[in-house]
């Protein structure tokens, strides 16, 4: 595509995503011919070197797939191994895990809302720039994020790659006194998170709707996090062990991340939009009333509004964390006893940016014979491309800079974590106009 009628718009980087990649768009007469979201994050081969390791090492090793959502990796890993071993943790330990996961949702979502996504809506390059004219908001974001990180520090031992999670529970259950210190900052963060929802709901959103197949966990009584069935807006309703029967990974040449599809149907979307659309009624009280106030549509179809949903989920996670902490009166036994044996197990949990599937097959002494991990971003990758395919045609006449920024924003809508699946996204738009040869600058 390099004849005189071909135009290449090269925009250096799509920033403010976690990982390395590029976007390649080819358009002809305002029609989108091809969209490729390329991920060139170098492959790191976790599934290969997990083979031969002990299943008890899985939570510490798989955490290293992603520094942004290590708790998600630890949670999917321990649940899958426990499933293989027939282990169920006690209710207090389940609560502690939920508390830890709430911490990660709060810090990861707040990072995205304030530092990665909000600058798009307000026309800033980054949060540091935004802080000059919106100091109060940025300070608020940092305070909420800090409160979330404190949970991960206290329950997990440290913010990035926590050390306290293990198969069967925790190495040490935190002392009630340690957990109590979290309460006051979390209560302050909750008030700020409510203000955040009001703030982001006032942004202006591009007029764009799309309704992909939404896939999320569903739990009978809780907004999903650690467990539940995998359900979809098209009627999927399966257990985690059936995941491979329903979804397939395909390897396409232009990316180092595998694409996931619903077998026989194609792309699907996981993450905040899917979780919210499939589980809205299960949100905690304040989060639900904010949803009713600011998201009147029954199904939220605008991916740009994911920032509102993330903000509502921050409120939810704060309410949930506060609830768990308020009833944490004594340290439970840190873990349940179990013995290693041969078996196979799978688990799906809700990482902040979407479903995270782990599956392991173990030998008699707990050695991992085979591991499979499907991160949220590789599940969403095809759906992100579909968003761009639908978004661009009616906007093809926009000036180059605006069009590019819109593409970046459309990708950031889904908080892709490219280390999980890839770091910079280099954006290339090829516009082919054979009829009159006019080229955009």
């Amino acid at each position, binding site marked *: 595509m390099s004849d005189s009628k071909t135009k290449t718009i090269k925009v250096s980087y799509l920033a403010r995503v976690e990982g390395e990649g590029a976007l390649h768009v080819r358009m002809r007469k305002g029609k989108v011919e091809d969209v490729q979201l390329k991920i060139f994050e170098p492959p790191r081969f976790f599934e290969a*070197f997990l083979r031969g390791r002990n299943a008890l*090492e899985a939570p510490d090793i798989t955490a290293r797939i992603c520094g942004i959502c290590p708790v998600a990796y630890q949670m999917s890993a321990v649940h899958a191994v426990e499933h293989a071993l027939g282990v169920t943790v006690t209710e207090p330990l389940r609560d502690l895990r939920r508390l830890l996961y709430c911490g990660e949702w709060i810090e990861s979502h707040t990072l995205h809302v304030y530092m990665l996504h909000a600058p798009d809506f307000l026309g800033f390059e980054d949060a*540091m720039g935004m802080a000059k004219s919106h100091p109060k908001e940025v300070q608020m974001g940092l305070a909420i994020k800090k409160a979330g990180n404190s949970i991960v520090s206290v329950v997990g031992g440290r913010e*990035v790659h926590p*050390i306290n999670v293990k198969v069967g529970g925790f190495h040490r259950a935190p002392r009630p006194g340690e957990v109590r210190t979290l309460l006051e900052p979390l209560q302050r963060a909750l008030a700020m998170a409510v203000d955040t929802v009001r703030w982001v709901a006032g942004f202006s959103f591009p007029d764009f709707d799309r309704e992909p197949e939404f896939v999320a966990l569903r739990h009978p009584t809780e907004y999903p996090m650690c467990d539940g069935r995998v359900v979809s807006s098209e009627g999927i309703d399966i257990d985690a062990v059936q995941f491979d029967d329903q979804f397939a990974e395909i390897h396409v040449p232009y990316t180092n991340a595998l694409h996931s599809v619903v077998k026989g149907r194609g792309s699907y979307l996981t993450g905040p939009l899917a979780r919210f659309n499939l589980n809205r009624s299960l949100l905690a009280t304040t989060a639900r009333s904010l949803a009713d106030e600011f998201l009147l549509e029954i199904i939220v179809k605008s991916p740009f509004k994911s920032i509102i949903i993330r903000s509502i989920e921050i409120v939810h996670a704060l309410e949930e964390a506060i609830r768990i902490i308020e009833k944490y009166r004594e340290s439970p036994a840190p873990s349940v006893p179990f013995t290693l044996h041969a078996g196979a197990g799978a688990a799906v949990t809700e990482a902040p940016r979407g479903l995270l599937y782990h599956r392991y097959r173990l030998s008699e002494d707990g050695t991992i014979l085979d591991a499979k991990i499907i991160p949220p971003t590789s599940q969403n990758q095809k759906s992100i491309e579909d968003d761009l395919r639908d978004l661009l045609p009616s906007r093809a006449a926009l000036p180059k800079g605006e069009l590019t920024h819109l593409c970046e924003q459309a990708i950031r809508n889904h908080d892709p974590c490219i280390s999980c699946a890839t770091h910079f996204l280099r954006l290339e738009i090829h516009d082919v106009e054979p009829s009159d040869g006019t080229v955009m600058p």
Partner: protein
Amino acid sequence: MRRERLKKMAVWKFASCDGCQLSLLDCEDELLTLAGKIKIAHFIEASRAVMRGPYDLSLVEGSITTPDDAERIKEVRRESRTLITIGACATSGGIQALRNFADVREFTSIVYARPEYIHTLAQSTGIADHVKVDFELRGCPINKRQLLEVILAFLKGRRPNIASESVCVECKARGNICIAVAKGVACMGPVTQAGCGAICPAYDRGCYGCFGPKEHANVNSLRADWSEQKGLSPLAMERLFHTFHAWAEPFRQAGLAAKQDLTPEIQRIEAECE
């Protein structure tokens, strides 16, 4: 009075999990102050704005695993007056250096349906194997307090005050009871560099060495203790040394030495994985 030019800082990423650069954004209390003291000129994870080099300070995360990255790190070095690596991947190749002990083609075919689409090097190596490094900040992940100290020291033009003692020293300072002695836990504290705050022993588990080998780490003595006093199997010892800093020399050697004693066990596992 003339305002002094702010020094320019860049953050670079190679093969890694993003956790170390995230530590910079995790400095919630200091981030905005820091942004007023140093120009964040290139930090793709956080900003669209990219300033051209040269940079006064480059922080480099990640290991070198592809032919392109082996070239890119040389460019980064040319553009950087001071280059500081952050984290285990950049120091010793990280967890992805486990490939260095295996056949990478086989690894590719385990993970990817079409291995021919994947371009990768046979080994994952730290940055100092490729270019001159001015300082290595350890940890998987790094400690954000230490990161701030490194940046501050750079701004003041002094050496960073980063201890090179073992985790045991931090553990004592924290008032932990030694779990290796009291509970017979295999703890890597004696051979691991301090910096984490001895968090693992504080959470009732043995240190797993994520800050890498301390200077003059006596790995053989530790291995003898594990084998004779604690009854650890060669396989368990190999796994402990070969995880987050498997390619750092003392840990690499200690793991290989343990492995020599377990050839039959490894063959059994490999046969089962087939």
